[in-house]
Protein backbone atom coordinates (compact mmCIF):
# COMPACT_ATOMS: atom_id res chain seq x y z
CA UNK A 1 0.00 0.00 0.00
CA UNK A 2 1.17 3.48 -0.72
CA UNK A 3 0.08 6.67 0.96
CA UNK A 4 -2.07 7.28 -2.10
CA UNK A 5 -4.79 5.05 -0.71
CA UNK A 6 -3.97 4.71 2.94
CA UNK A 7 -4.25 6.64 6.17
CA UNK A 8 -2.62 6.10 9.55
CA UNK A 9 -4.86 5.61 12.57
CA UNK A 10 -3.24 5.38 16.00
CA UNK A 11 0.04 4.39 14.43
CA UNK A 12 -1.42 1.69 12.15
CA UNK A 13 -1.63 2.03 8.39
CA UNK A 14 -4.98 1.17 6.90
CA UNK A 15 -6.68 1.36 3.54
CA UNK A 16 -8.95 4.23 2.67
CA UNK A 17 -11.33 3.21 -0.12
CA UNK A 18 -12.50 6.72 -0.82
CA UNK A 19 -12.38 10.17 0.70
CA UNK A 20 -14.78 10.44 3.63
CA UNK A 21 -15.51 12.52 6.69
CA UNK A 22 -14.17 12.13 10.17
CA UNK A 23 -17.57 11.29 11.66
CA UNK A 24 -18.14 8.47 9.15
CA UNK A 25 -14.68 7.04 9.72
CA UNK A 26 -15.08 7.21 13.48
CA UNK A 27 -18.53 5.61 13.35
CA UNK A 28 -16.98 2.71 11.41
CA UNK A 29 -14.67 2.23 14.36
CA UNK A 30 -17.47 2.31 16.90
CA UNK A 31 -16.83 5.89 18.00
CA UNK A 32 -20.02 7.86 17.62
CA UNK A 33 -20.49 11.57 18.07
CA UNK A 34 -21.83 11.03 21.58
CA UNK A 35 -18.83 8.99 22.76
CA UNK A 36 -17.65 10.40 26.08
CA UNK A 37 -14.04 11.01 26.94
CA UNK A 38 -12.75 10.73 23.39
CA UNK A 39 -10.78 13.26 21.38
CA UNK A 40 -9.34 13.22 17.89
CA UNK A 41 -6.34 14.85 16.26
CA UNK A 42 -5.95 15.04 12.51
CA UNK A 43 -2.45 15.67 11.17
CA UNK A 44 -1.26 16.94 14.53
CA UNK A 45 -4.17 19.24 15.34
CA UNK A 46 -7.22 18.75 17.52
CA UNK A 47 -10.50 18.40 15.65
CA UNK A 48 -13.33 19.50 17.90
CA UNK A 49 -16.24 17.12 18.15
CA UNK A 50 -18.66 19.68 16.74
CA UNK A 51 -16.74 19.70 13.46
CA UNK A 52 -16.25 15.93 13.01
CA UNK A 53 -19.11 15.72 10.50
CA UNK A 54 -17.65 18.35 8.21
CA UNK A 55 -13.98 17.39 8.49
CA UNK A 56 -12.75 15.55 5.39
CA UNK A 57 -10.39 12.60 5.67
CA UNK A 58 -8.24 11.89 2.67
CA UNK A 59 -5.39 9.56 1.74
CA UNK A 60 -2.19 10.32 3.57
CA UNK A 61 -3.93 11.73 6.64
CA UNK A 62 -2.69 10.85 10.12
CA UNK A 63 -5.30 10.36 12.83
CA UNK A 64 -4.94 10.00 16.57
CA UNK A 65 -8.02 8.81 18.44
CA UNK A 66 -7.42 9.10 22.17
CA UNK A 67 -9.18 8.76 25.47
CA UNK A 68 -8.39 9.32 29.13
CA UNK A 69 -6.66 6.37 30.74
CA UNK A 70 -4.94 5.61 34.01
CA UNK A 71 -2.15 8.05 34.74
CA UNK A 72 0.01 9.60 37.42
Amino acid at each position, binding site marked *: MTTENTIR*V*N*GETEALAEATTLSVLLAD*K*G*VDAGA*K*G*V*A*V*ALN*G*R*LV*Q*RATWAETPVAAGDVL*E*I*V*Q*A*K*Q*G*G
Partner: protein
Amino acid sequence: MTNNMSDPLVIAGRSFQSRLFLGTAGYPNQKVMLDALKASGSEMATMSIRRMDLSGTEEGLLDVIRGKVHLLPNTAGCHTAHDARLTADLAREALETNWIKLELIGDRELLYPDIVELVRTTEELVNDGFVVLPYCNDDPIACRRLADVGAAAVMPLGSLIGSGQGIANPRMIELICERSPVPVVLDAGIGTASDAAQAMELGCSAVLLNTAVSKALDPVRMASAMRLGVEAGRGARLAGRMPKRDFAEPSSPQLGLIGG
Protein backbone atom coordinates in the same frame (compact mmCIF):
# COMPACT_ATOMS: atom_id res chain seq x y z
CA MET B 1 -7.73 23.76 66.67
CA THR B 2 -7.20 23.68 62.96
CA ASN B 3 -8.63 20.82 61.04
CA ASN B 4 -8.80 20.33 57.31
CA MET B 5 -12.38 21.54 57.21
CA SER B 6 -11.28 25.04 58.08
CA ASP B 7 -8.10 24.98 56.03
CA PRO B 8 -9.05 24.71 52.38
CA LEU B 9 -6.50 24.75 49.59
CA VAL B 10 -7.44 27.03 46.71
CA ILE B 11 -5.89 26.60 43.28
CA ALA B 12 -7.15 28.79 40.43
CA GLY B 13 -10.35 29.49 42.34
CA ARG B 14 -11.14 25.82 43.01
CA SER B 15 -11.29 24.90 46.68
CA PHE B 16 -10.05 21.58 48.05
CA GLN B 17 -10.61 20.16 51.52
CA SER B 18 -8.06 17.42 50.85
CA ARG B 19 -4.43 18.30 50.23
CA LEU B 20 -3.67 14.96 48.64
CA PHE B 21 -3.96 14.41 44.89
CA LEU B 22 -3.81 10.81 43.69
CA GLY B 23 -2.73 9.14 40.47
CA THR B 24 -4.83 6.38 38.94
CA ALA B 25 -2.11 4.21 37.33
CA GLY B 26 -0.65 0.85 38.15
CA TYR B 27 -3.16 -0.55 40.65
CA PRO B 28 -3.80 -4.31 40.79
CA ASN B 29 -7.27 -3.66 39.37
CA GLN B 30 -9.88 -0.97 38.98
CA LYS B 31 -11.72 -1.80 42.19
CA VAL B 32 -8.56 -1.39 44.27
CA MET B 33 -7.93 1.94 42.55
CA LEU B 34 -11.42 3.18 43.37
CA ASP B 35 -11.19 1.95 46.96
CA ALA B 36 -7.78 3.60 47.34
CA LEU B 37 -9.12 6.83 45.91
CA LYS B 38 -11.93 6.78 48.43
CA ALA B 39 -9.61 5.92 51.33
CA SER B 40 -7.22 8.72 50.36
CA GLY B 41 -9.94 11.33 50.70
CA SER B 42 -8.52 12.94 47.57
CA GLU B 43 -10.71 15.26 45.54
CA MET B 44 -8.56 15.29 42.40
CA ALA B 45 -7.10 12.38 40.45
CA THR B 46 -4.67 12.41 37.55
CA MET B 47 -5.21 10.63 34.24
CA SER B 48 -3.21 10.25 31.05
CA ILE B 49 -4.30 10.71 27.45
CA ARG B 50 -3.52 7.69 25.32
CA ARG B 51 -4.52 6.07 22.05
CA MET B 52 -7.92 4.46 22.26
CA ASP B 53 -8.17 0.68 21.97
CA LEU B 54 -10.32 0.47 18.85
CA SER B 55 -11.08 -3.22 19.39
CA GLY B 56 -13.53 -2.07 22.04
CA THR B 57 -12.42 -4.63 24.61
CA GLU B 58 -10.87 -2.22 27.07
CA GLU B 59 -12.40 -1.45 30.44
CA GLY B 60 -13.24 2.24 30.55
CA LEU B 61 -11.74 4.04 33.53
CA LEU B 62 -13.46 7.32 32.90
CA ASP B 63 -16.97 5.91 33.29
CA VAL B 64 -16.26 4.75 36.83
CA ILE B 65 -14.31 7.77 38.02
CA ARG B 66 -16.15 10.67 36.43
CA GLY B 67 -18.23 12.66 38.91
CA LYS B 68 -16.41 11.24 41.94
CA VAL B 69 -13.42 13.59 41.87
CA HIS B 70 -12.00 16.39 39.78
CA LEU B 71 -9.90 15.03 36.94
CA LEU B 72 -6.42 16.34 36.25
CA PRO B 73 -5.21 15.08 32.87
CA ASN B 74 -1.47 14.96 32.35
CA THR B 75 0.92 15.19 29.43
CA ALA B 76 3.02 12.32 30.75
CA GLY B 77 5.58 11.00 28.32
CA CYS B 78 5.67 14.12 26.16
CA HIS B 79 9.17 15.12 25.10
CA THR B 80 8.32 18.02 22.82
CA ALA B 81 6.35 21.19 23.27
CA HIS B 82 4.24 20.23 20.25
CA ASP B 83 3.21 16.87 21.72
CA ALA B 84 2.50 18.42 25.11
CA ARG B 85 0.34 21.16 23.63
CA LEU B 86 -1.57 18.70 21.44
CA THR B 87 -2.07 16.36 24.39
CA ALA B 88 -3.39 19.28 26.44
CA ASP B 89 -5.80 20.18 23.63
CA LEU B 90 -6.97 16.56 23.38
CA ALA B 91 -7.36 16.34 27.17
CA ARG B 92 -9.45 19.49 27.30
CA GLU B 93 -11.72 18.11 24.59
CA ALA B 94 -11.94 14.58 26.04
CA LEU B 95 -12.42 15.49 29.68
CA GLU B 96 -14.05 18.89 29.39
CA THR B 97 -11.59 20.46 31.79
CA ASN B 98 -9.06 23.19 31.15
CA TRP B 99 -6.82 21.92 33.96
CA ILE B 100 -3.61 20.24 32.85
CA LYS B 101 -0.68 18.69 34.67
CA LEU B 102 2.10 19.68 32.32
CA GLU B 103 4.92 17.18 32.04
CA LEU B 104 7.64 17.91 29.54
CA ILE B 105 10.30 15.30 29.89
CA GLY B 106 13.91 15.82 28.92
CA ASP B 107 15.30 12.34 29.51
CA ARG B 108 13.65 8.95 29.21
CA GLU B 109 15.62 7.32 32.00
CA LEU B 110 15.32 10.08 34.55
CA LEU B 111 11.92 11.44 33.44
CA TYR B 112 13.38 14.75 34.52
CA PRO B 113 11.67 17.96 33.40
CA ASP B 114 13.04 19.93 30.45
CA ILE B 115 12.77 23.29 32.16
CA VAL B 116 13.38 25.49 29.11
CA GLU B 117 10.55 23.89 27.14
CA LEU B 118 8.42 23.66 30.27
CA VAL B 119 8.43 27.40 30.96
CA ARG B 120 7.72 28.25 27.33
CA THR B 121 4.90 25.71 27.02
CA THR B 122 3.36 26.75 30.34
CA GLU B 123 3.13 30.30 29.04
CA GLU B 124 1.56 29.16 25.76
CA LEU B 125 -1.02 26.99 27.47
CA VAL B 126 -1.89 29.71 29.99
CA ASN B 127 -2.42 32.11 27.11
CA ASP B 128 -4.65 29.48 25.52
CA GLY B 129 -6.91 29.39 28.59
CA PHE B 130 -5.51 26.41 30.47
CA VAL B 131 -5.04 26.12 34.23
CA VAL B 132 -1.48 24.80 34.15
CA LEU B 133 0.15 22.80 36.93
CA PRO B 134 3.68 22.08 35.72
CA TYR B 135 5.74 19.18 37.06
CA CYS B 136 9.13 20.79 37.59
CA ASN B 137 12.58 20.68 39.16
CA ASP B 138 13.16 21.43 42.83
CA ASP B 139 14.67 24.72 41.72
CA PRO B 140 13.42 28.01 43.24
CA ILE B 141 14.22 29.98 40.10
CA ALA B 142 12.49 27.52 37.78
CA CYS B 143 9.46 27.63 40.07
CA ARG B 144 9.47 31.42 40.05
CA ARG B 145 9.70 31.52 36.27
CA LEU B 146 6.73 29.18 36.01
CA ALA B 147 4.69 31.30 38.40
CA ASP B 148 5.70 34.42 36.46
CA VAL B 149 4.26 33.02 33.23
CA GLY B 150 0.99 32.09 34.92
CA ALA B 151 1.27 28.57 36.37
CA ALA B 152 -1.64 28.05 38.80
CA ALA B 153 0.63 26.02 41.05
CA VAL B 154 4.14 24.64 40.78
CA MET B 155 4.82 20.96 41.30
CA PRO B 156 8.49 20.34 42.13
CA LEU B 157 9.71 16.75 42.35
CA GLY B 158 10.73 15.25 45.68
CA SER B 159 12.87 12.74 43.79
CA LEU B 160 12.61 10.92 40.46
CA ILE B 161 9.18 9.80 39.27
CA GLY B 162 8.29 6.38 40.61
CA SER B 163 11.51 6.08 42.63
CA GLY B 164 9.90 6.19 46.05
CA GLN B 165 13.06 7.83 47.41
CA GLY B 166 11.29 10.61 49.27
CA ILE B 167 12.40 14.22 49.29
CA ALA B 168 16.00 14.37 48.11
CA ASN B 169 16.51 18.05 48.90
CA PRO B 170 14.19 19.11 51.71
CA ARG B 171 15.84 22.48 52.29
CA MET B 172 15.29 23.44 48.66
CA ILE B 173 11.63 22.43 48.83
CA GLU B 174 11.31 24.58 51.95
CA LEU B 175 12.92 27.54 50.16
CA ILE B 176 10.58 27.11 47.20
CA CYS B 177 7.60 27.10 49.54
CA GLU B 178 8.80 30.24 51.32
CA ARG B 179 9.17 32.14 48.07
CA SER B 180 6.45 30.83 45.80
CA PRO B 181 3.56 33.18 45.02
CA VAL B 182 1.45 30.17 43.96
CA PRO B 183 0.69 26.90 45.80
CA VAL B 184 3.51 24.34 45.82
CA VAL B 185 2.45 20.74 45.24
CA LEU B 186 5.14 18.16 45.96
CA ASP B 187 4.96 15.80 43.00
CA ALA B 188 6.96 12.61 42.49
CA GLY B 189 9.25 10.62 44.72
CA ILE B 190 6.96 10.07 47.69
CA GLY B 191 7.51 6.54 48.99
CA THR B 192 5.64 6.35 52.25
CA ALA B 193 3.45 8.35 54.61
CA SER B 194 6.31 10.07 56.43
CA ASP B 195 7.51 11.51 53.10
CA ALA B 196 4.07 13.03 52.55
CA ALA B 197 4.06 14.41 56.09
CA GLN B 198 7.53 15.86 55.57
CA ALA B 199 6.44 17.64 52.39
CA MET B 200 3.63 19.31 54.27
CA GLU B 201 5.89 20.19 57.21
CA LEU B 202 8.26 21.88 54.79
CA GLY B 203 5.43 24.13 53.72
CA CYS B 204 3.98 22.44 50.65
CA SER B 205 0.33 23.19 49.98
CA ALA B 206 -0.44 19.66 48.79
CA VAL B 207 1.09 16.37 47.70
CA LEU B 208 0.55 14.48 44.45
CA LEU B 209 1.49 10.82 44.45
CA ASN B 210 0.66 7.59 42.69
CA THR B 211 3.15 4.73 42.82
CA ALA B 212 3.58 4.87 46.59
CA VAL B 213 -0.06 3.85 46.86
CA SER B 214 -0.59 1.73 43.75
CA LYS B 215 2.51 -0.42 44.37
CA ALA B 216 2.08 -0.78 48.12
CA LEU B 217 1.29 -4.31 49.28
CA ASP B 218 -2.07 -3.00 50.42
CA PRO B 219 -2.86 0.05 48.30
CA VAL B 220 -6.10 0.92 50.07
CA ARG B 221 -4.42 0.90 53.46
CA MET B 222 -1.53 2.98 52.14
CA ALA B 223 -3.99 5.48 50.65
CA SER B 224 -5.48 5.92 54.09
CA ALA B 225 -1.99 6.26 55.60
CA MET B 226 -1.14 8.94 53.04
CA ARG B 227 -4.25 10.87 53.95
CA LEU B 228 -3.22 10.78 57.59
CA GLY B 229 0.38 11.67 56.73
CA VAL B 230 -0.69 14.72 54.77
CA GLU B 231 -3.06 15.81 57.52
CA ALA B 232 -0.42 15.28 60.22
CA GLY B 233 2.21 17.19 58.28
CA ARG B 234 -0.15 20.06 57.55
CA GLY B 235 -1.20 20.20 61.19
CA ALA B 236 2.40 20.25 62.37
CA ARG B 237 3.24 22.99 59.89
CA LEU B 238 0.38 25.17 61.10
CA ALA B 239 1.15 24.41 64.73
CA GLY B 240 4.75 25.59 64.37
CA ARG B 241 7.40 23.15 65.51
CA MET B 242 9.65 23.73 68.52
CA PRO B 243 13.16 25.00 67.89
CA LYS B 244 15.92 22.40 67.62
CA ARG B 245 18.60 22.41 70.33
CA ASP B 246 22.11 21.05 70.45
CA PHE B 247 21.83 19.68 74.00
CA ALA B 248 19.22 18.13 76.24
CA GLU B 249 16.60 20.32 77.84
CA PRO B 250 14.68 18.65 80.68
CA SER B 251 10.97 18.66 80.27
CA SER B 252 10.26 17.92 83.93
CA PRO B 253 10.67 20.74 86.48
CA GLN B 254 14.13 21.12 88.07
CA LEU B 255 12.70 22.43 91.37
CA GLY B 256 11.54 19.99 94.04
CA LEU B 257 13.84 17.11 93.17
CA ILE B 258 14.16 14.74 96.09
CA GLY B 259 17.50 13.99 97.70
CA GLY B 260 20.43 16.37 97.53
